[in-house]
């Protein structure tokens, strides 16, 4: 089994350890060296990459946010643009739309989404597909001219920093955006923090809603206050060791540290350095800091941080405001940022639902135009794959809400639409076992047409992940769906494992896995039955999460009754074995890949 991650090129080049300053110099050129090679290959074309060096080069390209697409799609790349805290400054959304329009087009189109589309991700970043190597120089030039970067969006380094996308504008207990900016400027591309044992995911939240989802990050700064020398100081409590992947989900644990905003970078850097020095470099499967927290416990973690990695006396934890958390909390209030909300400057932001996070280039251009016309031109991306138009004066709200784009990307969507999150899936991703985005679109549509939610249930989160990598964060949804296979009528078909009752909030909880290998076409029926059971047995106005929490494993397993319904699934067959699931001739042999810079097939003639 292959695991994604970056090789340590500088160690390869140097054959081992080097003195720190030389290593730093070498590291500095590491990213630039790769870029030089990347540009050379781009000039000369796909075939200039020696075939026996493909794997090594694809690893290195990840430094620049490029992931080679899967089997059958050779020579095409997914490109990830890292936007700290999901902030798109005025003008940037338009640039993303234009790049998608011109470059994110492939040899086939998606039946739901067409061609040339933008994916907003669960880490508040942007992904574009079907990118040709030969177009990289132009794309990078355009991105960089507009303050956008693909650097280190992937690999064993600081990943895109997340938080409440509305930091700086929504009401906050403490200002998160200056901290996020400082962390991004200090640590992104910083050689001392670029060859970590594994990926490093950081969340900084200042708002009282918990929307930074700190609990599932390696390092979480969450709003807190502490009395120090008679003064109430607002800052952050520090939690460490959250993360979802590989069937070992962990919540970030409280290490009893409070940090002032001005010291946040030093403590975050200290934690990153601790991870760098003490994380497991022998076994990648044991490398995330969540396992180190398991092993050491929080007291030792704090002690080592204090003794070895920070230069001042750490404060003990302050008082948090977790009791106010609503984001993804499965509670009474909407657990997302959709809809019209007042900013602290008296203007408004409007959160729009983007079903499974995918938006056509045209629509993205329109989004940019509306943001320009009604707001300040800024757009923000949330971890639920949705977008916000910011800075809209109250008087202009009605006109904005009347805009046709908002019919397709609604600020008041149906719960099944609003609750859907899906990863990339077999359409492009080499890890996935099943089709995801289009499937979740079909699920959401069918559920909306055919299933009533019990009274008062305004939110229902269904997250569909194509494999155990958990990019769609299934463990923190009401219904978690995860790709598998099963046999139906003698044939192998796509199936889903089912989990129930996950969510964040004051007391986060991972989903309980209660069903395995449910055929994909029987999952909507299973959800229908589940909701009927919920309605019939609901006590008072309890939420779905509460309902699930008060039943034991055996009872929950009984709740899963898969059944066929009017829902039709045209992709039950093993879509990972196709070259592209939506091609008319999807047989691997029919793939045009690899193609040249113009998209013409250069596949060997004997195929």
């Amino acid at each position, binding site marked *: 089994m292959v695991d994604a991650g970056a090789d340590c090129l500088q160690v390869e080049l140097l054959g081992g350890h080097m003195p720190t300053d030389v290593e730093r110099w070498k590291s500095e050129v590491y990213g630039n060296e790769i870029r030089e090679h990347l540009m050379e290959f781009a000039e000369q074309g796909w075939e200039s990459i020696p075939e026996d060096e493909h794997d090594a080069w694809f690893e290195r390209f990840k430094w620049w946010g490029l992931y080679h697409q899967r089997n059958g799609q050779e020579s095409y790349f997914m490109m990830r643009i890292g936007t700290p805290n999901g902030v798109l400054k005025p003008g940037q959304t338009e640039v993303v739309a234009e790049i998608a329009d011109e470059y994110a087009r492939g040899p086939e189109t998606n039946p739901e989404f067409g061609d040339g589309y933008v994916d907003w991700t669960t880490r508040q970043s942007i992904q574009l597909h079907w990118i040709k190597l030969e177009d990289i120089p132009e794309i990078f030039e355009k991105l960089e001219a507009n303050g956008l970067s693909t650097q280190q969006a992937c690999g064993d380094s600081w990943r895109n920093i997340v938080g409440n996308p509305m930091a700086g504008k929504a009401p906050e207990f403490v200002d998160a955006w200056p901290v996020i900016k400082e962390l991004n400027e200090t640590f992104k591309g910083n050689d001392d923090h670029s060859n970590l044992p594994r990926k490093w995911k950081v969340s900084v939240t200042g708002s009282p809603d918990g929307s930074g989802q700190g609990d599932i990050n390696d390092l979480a700064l969450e709003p807190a206050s502490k009395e120090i020398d008679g003064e109430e100081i607002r800052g952050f409590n520090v939690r460490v060791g959250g993360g979802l992947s590989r069937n070992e989900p962990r919540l970030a644990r409280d290490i009893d540290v409070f940090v002032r905003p001005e010291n946040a970078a030093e403590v975050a850097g200290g934690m990153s350095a601790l991870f760098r020095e003490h994380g497991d*470099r*022998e*076994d*990648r499967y044991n490398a995330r800091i969540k396992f180190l927290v398991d092993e050491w416990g929080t007291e030792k973690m704090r002690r080592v941080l204090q003794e070895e990695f920070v230069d001042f006396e750490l404060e003990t934890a302050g008082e948090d405001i977790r009791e106010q958390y609503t984001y993804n909390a499965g509670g009474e209030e909407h657990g997302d940022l959709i809809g019209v909300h007042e900013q602290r400057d008296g203007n408004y932001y409007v959160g729009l639902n983007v079903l499974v996070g995918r938006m056509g280039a045209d629509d993205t251009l329109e989004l940019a135009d509306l943001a320009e016309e009604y707001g300040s031109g800024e757009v923000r991306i949330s971890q639920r794959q949705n977008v916000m138009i910011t800075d809209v004066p109250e008087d202009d709200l009605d006109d904005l809400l009347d805009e046709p784009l908002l019919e397709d990307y609604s600020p008041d969507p149906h719960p099944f639409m609003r609750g859907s999150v899906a990863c990339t899936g077999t359409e492009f991703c080499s*890890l996935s076992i099943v089709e995801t985005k289009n499937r979740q679109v079909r699920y959401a549509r069918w559920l909306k047409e055919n299933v009533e939610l019990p009274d008062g249930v305004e939110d229902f989160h269904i997250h569909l992940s194509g494999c155990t990598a958990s990019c769609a964060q299934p463990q923190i949804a009401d219904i978690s769906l995860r790709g598998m296979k099963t*046999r139906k009528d003698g044939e192998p078909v796509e199936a889903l494992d089912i989990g129930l009752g996950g969510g964040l909030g004051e007391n986060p909880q991972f989903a309980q*896995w209660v069903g395995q290998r449910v055929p994909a076409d029987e999952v909507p029926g299973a959800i229908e039955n589940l909701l009927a059971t919920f309605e019939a047995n609901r006590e008072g106005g309890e939420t779905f999460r509460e309902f699930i929490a008060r039943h034991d494993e055996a009872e929950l*397993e009984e709740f899963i009754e898969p059944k066929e319904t009017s829902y039709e699934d045209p992709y039950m067959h093993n879509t990972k074995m196709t070259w592209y699931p939506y091609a008319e001739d999807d047989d691997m042999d029919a793939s045009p890949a690899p193609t040249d810079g113009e998209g013409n097939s250069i596949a060997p003639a004997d195929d």
Partner: protein
Amino acid sequence: MSDRLLSVNAYTTLDLLDGEAEAHEFTESAYAVVNATAPRKNPDHVKLEMELDNAELEHLPAHADRVRLTPEQARTIAADLEKYASKVEANLDDSDD
């Protein structure tokens, strides 16, 4: 039911097999996952691992089994698998006649 122990993605060797666990007191059957792999950094052994779907198990707790193999051992298994694959194939082809 518990969560799976083995990660399952497109690189997992086989994700849909008919599996069985035999004990003195009972035999259980369930769908199974089998995976052959090696550590990514400094691969010093081959790992062969298997997991039966715990949803279908009545007696056994959720578990995954694995063995560590030297290259020679891995090849020995591969050779035996090849041999028996040919044997089974030949028999199945014969019975088609």
